[in-house]
């Protein structure tokens, strides 16, 4: 590998780390949205029961 390719690799690794972190946070956000929806459904069910 040339010196320039090593530099590209180093900066690329940082970019990939940040993108993986964003993907993990996005997955968590989807889960939180689903759980919030379930709880809202539960609250609506309780309100209609009571």
């Amino acid at each position, binding site marked *: 590998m040339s*010196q320039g390719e*090593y530099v590209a690799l180093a*900066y690329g690794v940082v970019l990939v780390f940040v993108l993986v972190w964003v993907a993990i946070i996005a997955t968590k956000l989807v889960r*939180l949205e689903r759980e919030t929806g379930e709880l809202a459904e*539960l609250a609506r069910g*309780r309100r209609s029961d009571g």
Partner: protein
Amino acid sequence: MSSRNNLPLLAFLTAGLLGLGVVLAFVVAPEDADQGISQKIFYFHVPIALTAYACFGLGAWKALRLLWVGGERRDLESYTWIHQGTIFGALTLITGSIWARASWGVWWSWGSNQLVLFLVLVLFYCAYFMLRFSVDEGARRERICAVYALFGVALIPVSFFAIRLASDFIHPTVFTRSGPQMTHTMFTAFLVCWAALTLLAYVMYRVELVGKRTDAHLRELREALT
């Protein structure tokens, strides 16, 4: 503007500073006479390492505050800072390893104290997560994790000064008592990259903290509703 809603602004500022840092490092700063283009790794590698130290230090500070004045939120804050520190620590090792390969012809040198000490620091904090997830949630876990985080901070000055005290001189020392050993444009590029990566760590910390707190609130809500 409250601290809660300035997160998008900080995220945009981080993106802008990162872009500016890359432009300054690759377009404005001159190529190093000794190392050539491989020296460009310096502009991200050193700020990432300094950010990792800062994250571990802040994790320990939050742990100290937890032991001192208590508060469940400080446990979460300490944990989140240490998580950021581990991410940036791993990035330091990877970018450093690539730079070592480009400059010295090897991916790693076990004979270099500063490299091994930084690895020990990162592994120490990796073990923090094993400890954290092996103890049941509660006040006991908060105290154990806080004490562990505080012990780890002692490794930071050892790791930091090892670069200056090392006898092998393989790892370059750019900042000496007579100031930074680089041109003004190189130093400006370094400072911008350092600010950008520190801000990136802070934004990541805040986003993770919001996620973890929302998670905890949802758990409480679920318990209350079922």
